[in-house]
């Protein structure tokens, strides 16, 4: 497979390619690791180069693996009665357990994303002294949760749907000093919202 007489590029051109190659990876390295060590101007230039086409986030299970997960739950009021709290992600989780190569995991992560946004919303709203209903209902997580309840949940087509409420159930894991794993659940509900007919 070798032919020693084959032509090669002029030296200047081959080195130009190498310089471009090195410049690319230098920018990517600065984008990855430069944040706390290099001047902000250099990091900004590197970030501008890397995002979005060469954006890469490799903080996988780092600096720690996740110690909590959020679950999106909701309930609805119909004919004057509240349903139990519904967990829309569980059927997808069952899919994931039964088939590692299906799309159960993808649906789990998509609906799980709603839970994370609801959780972030609870933090954001905590900074307001007296949040109004309008502020609660304009949070990005709430808007997506509302899309799900009114558009894709089993109650979406129920004409007698009066009120709905969404919430986020957080499962927190901690290791005790004795090396045992402990689990705590924290539930945070959003205000009830009347369905406009």
């Amino acid at each position: 497979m070798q032919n020693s007489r084959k032509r090669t590029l002029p030296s200047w051109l081959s080195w130009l390619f190498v310089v471009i190659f090195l410049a690319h990876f230098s920018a990517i390295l600065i984008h990855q690791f430069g944040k706390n060590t290099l001047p902000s101007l250099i990091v900004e230039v590197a970030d501008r180069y890397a995002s979005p086409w060469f954006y890469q986030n490799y903080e996988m299970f780092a600096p720690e693996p996740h110690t909590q997960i959020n679950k999106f739950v909701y309930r609805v009021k119909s004919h004057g009665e509240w349903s139990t709290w519904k967990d829309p992600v569980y059927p997808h989780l069952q899919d994931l357990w039964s088939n590692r190569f299906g799309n159960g995991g993808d649906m789990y992560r998509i609906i799980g994303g709603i839970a994370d946004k609801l959780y972030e919303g609870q933090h954001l709203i905590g900074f307001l002294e007296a949040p109004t209903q309008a502020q609660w209902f304009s949070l990005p997580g709430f808007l997506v949760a509302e899309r799900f309840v009114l558009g894709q949940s089993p109650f979406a087509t129920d004409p007698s749907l009066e009120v709905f409420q969404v919430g986020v159930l957080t499962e927190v894991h901690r290791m005790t000093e004795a090396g045992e794993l402990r689990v705590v659940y924290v539930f945070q509900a959003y205000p009830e919202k009347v369905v406009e007919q």
Partner: protein
Amino acid sequence: MRRLNDIWVRWQRHLDMLPVSELFIRAIYLTLIWSTIKLLLIGDVVWGEEWLHVRYTPFGNIDRFAMILNEAVVRPHYLWFALPFLALLIGGVIGRHNVFTRAVVWYLYVALHFGNVEISTGGHHLYQQLLFFHILFFRVNDQEDGMWAAARRMLHHLGFYAIWINIALLYFASAYWKTFGEMWFNGQAMLMSISFEPYSFPGILDLLPSNTWYLLVGTYAVFAYQLLFAVVIWIKPVRKPFLLFGLLFHLSIVFIVGLADFGLFMIASYSIFLAPADARKLMERLSVVRLKRKQ
């Protein structure tokens, strides 16, 4: 200096790794075909009008094209992205690809990937880079000479090693960020990771209420593998057994943790590290299978 120049010239004329790049294209395209088909089954939610995630459009100018599937007006037409992508991947698997199709594959992948960031993993980020560099995988045969052939050879080789470097970067970055935590040092990281049912199986907490010796060893082994990858991968005699450990690690991510995309993307990307002779044998076997089916 002259010796260095000789090595540099020889490296540019080298053609040994061509079967490796062809095999690499097939391996990553196969995983992408699987991933795209399973996502197409829920395509309306992933890329279409039934979206259930916070859409993200922070960019302007040409960068908007990377996030184009976040635009409400574009989402109803997501099949115009997903189906050509799938067709080009299938073409690539049977050897029908060129610099234009590879560039389009990269762009469509970027658009589809950013079209729903909720299902993105480190493997998706890596593929975005690998698919960019695979655009440079020009085919140059042994008979071709001249400036254009020399340029294509040079670009191929740079793309080839850029992929090595980018995979090494993934592991190094992942290990580097872990050094800022505690659980990767005290050996609890693996137990904590799989203690959540969505990242393992139901009832796992009843089986593993505290750390075990094998989870402790697993934690340190994975941490060490990621930390050492960027160096060890260049040492030929240990490359194979080292990658074998990585293969087992990523299979466990597929079957235990349940992140099949990430695990399979990483395993497929390992094909770039195969020895040229092994890659040639595999490619020959694949073409024999194809020929037999044709007969």
